[in-house]
């Protein structure tokens, strides 16, 4: 048994060129990346919404971001080029270094990792996407896929919440989502975060969600945001009669290896990078309160 030679190095990233970027807010940026090696681009298998990747700034370190664009799938002829997008907030060493990089510079990517949103199980159902702040990044891939295949699904409500107007991500693309028939985008900022010309809602996400009075019948709620938001959102959902099986979220724990070895992202027996990050509220209720 020649383990050593049979095992490729899972930690070695693919080299990616920064093809472009958009600044979502003063401290949030969306990068577009393309493979530098055409063989790697050809053999890339794509991803499913909800999966994540490890992004490397050489010299600074690695960070985990959700794969945020519509899933790329090879058309089989090798003619199309995969583009990977990630949205990140400048917070620590790696994200600060990443933020300072320009178009054409080289970063690393390995992935995709983790499980994915069960989008095919949502066919014909009404959907609500609820994203708090940068939490929208983890939902964007699924939202874009659903919008692209809108005829297969029921009504879609997208609830995008931010602390302030300036902190709202994906501002420029929301009108495009709204333009699709059967898609309603609701924007909200925390009280005090509004500006004079703000024309969206003012209120915390769970309250705004309750105000929408969306009946639970068969509807799927897909939510991602800070733990405190999810806590109150689940209370609102419970109050509104939603069953835990109807609610899907993602556990965004601190991760390092991405392959279930480093031990960092455990919630009880659940390794978030390997068994998650996508979980239903029902599954979350089975786990120890350690997230």
């Amino acid at each position: 048994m020649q383990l050593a030679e049979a095992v490729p190095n899972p930690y070695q990233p693919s080299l990616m060129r920064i093809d472009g970027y958009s600044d979502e807010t003063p401290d949030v940026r969306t990068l577009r990346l393309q493979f530098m090696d055409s063989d790697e681009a050809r053999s890339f298998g794509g991803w499913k919404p909800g999966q994540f990747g490890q992004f490397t700034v050489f010299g600074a370190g690695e960070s985990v971001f959700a794969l945020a664009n519509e899933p790329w799938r090879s058309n089989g002829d090798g003619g199309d080029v995969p583009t990977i997008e990630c949205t990140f907030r400048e917070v620590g060493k790696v994200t600060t270094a990443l933020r300072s990089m320009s178009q054409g510079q080289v970063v690393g990517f390995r992935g995709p990792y983790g499980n994915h949103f069960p989008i095919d199980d949502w066919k014909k159902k009404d959907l609500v996407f609820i994203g708090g702040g940068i939490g929208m990044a983890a939902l964007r891939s699924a939202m874009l896929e659903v919008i692209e295949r809108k005829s297969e699904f029921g009504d879609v409500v997208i609830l995008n919440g931010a602390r302030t107007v300036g902190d709202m991500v994906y501002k420029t693309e929301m009108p495009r989502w709204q333009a699709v028939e059967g898609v309603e985008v609701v924007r909200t900022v925390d009280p005090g975060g509004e500006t004079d010309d703000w024309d969206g809602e003012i209120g915390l996400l769970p309250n705004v969600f309750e105000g929408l009075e969306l009946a639970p019948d068969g509807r799927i709620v897909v939510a991602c945001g800070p733990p405190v938001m999810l806590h109150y959102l689940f209370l609102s959902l419970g109050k509104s009669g939603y069953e835990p099986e109807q609610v899907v979220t993602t556990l965004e724990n601190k991760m390092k290896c991405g392959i279930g070895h480093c031990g960092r992202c455990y919630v009880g027996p659940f390794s978030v990078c390997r068994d998650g990050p996508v979980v239903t509220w029902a599954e979350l209720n089975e786990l120890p309160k350690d997230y």
Partner: protein
Amino acid sequence: MDRRSWTIDEAEMRHWLQALIDGEMIVVAPVEEDGVVLFRPITSAEQAVVEPSGKTRWSPKEFLFPRSEALYRYRFKGDRVQLEDPPPVGRPQILFGVRSCDSSGLARLDEIFLSGTKDPLYAARRESTTVVSVACSAADAECFCTAVGGSPVGEEGSDFQLVPINDGWMVRVVTDKGNDLVGDTADGWAAASADDLEQTEKIEKHVAEQIERNPVDSQWSKVLEGGFENEAWKRLAEHCLGCSVCAYVCPSCSCFDMNHEANAWCGEQCRSWDACTFAIFTHHASGHNPRSTPQKRYRQRVLHKFAFREDEDEPFRCVGCGRCVALCPAGLDIVDTVTAAVAAIREEGTDAAC
């Protein structure tokens, strides 16, 4: 495979060890260094401290899972980055004189690093490592292998085993890899008698009697999981300093950190030992920390050893070496903790705790 066994005296064992050292493989064995016994590569059989009992300060895990190692390397070439493989894993090695608890610890590491996506560096080292374990004829004060399902003469994780009997050794092959170690040397050895083999059972019983610890019951895992939020954890973990010596000396702890070590010209993705008892282990970039107190972190370490198992047959991830008990500066004792936690949870009832 032929489970061959022999009875040899101390001189024959040392002679064999010297032959192994003179061979192609690196031999790593316990040696005394500044009054502390540690695993080190050896160049002569006399250096090895292979006794009927007693253990090294650190487990031998660092010879499969180094404290720090490069996962890959890179060079900056103008605007470009050139990736390079990590340094190759060295010559094949023999870990000689590994206690049964520590060889079980290696089996626990295998479960992490060789499951799912295989770790190539660990896999390469494991492949080129042969483990010669040595059974214990006496327990140290901190030992509790028998309380967690282990045995002082356990063979798990080892390829060849030495059992101390009658001032000499009963030696036996456990795997094909172990069989390869004896070669022609064994031609001059006397085959072990049925009586010699029987002695192994006597040793096991004798050592088990020395270990005055109540066994950790397999069913406690579920109790611990049910009482996750029991108030007792605050009291039980109150003294934990978060120093993490327990995780570092543990033969089965496998958590690691990954960081880039780099300068203007080159760098590497570096993996280092880490521990769930450190404050920033689970600290999110947002500032949120699911395990925000030393108590929550200590609970995680204890439960990861004794709870969250898929079924009752799955071994505990604690192998009972007792190093964490002996070296904890706050005097915390993992078996006492588990026992007390289970008692507290049962007393209050799991419903009250949730």
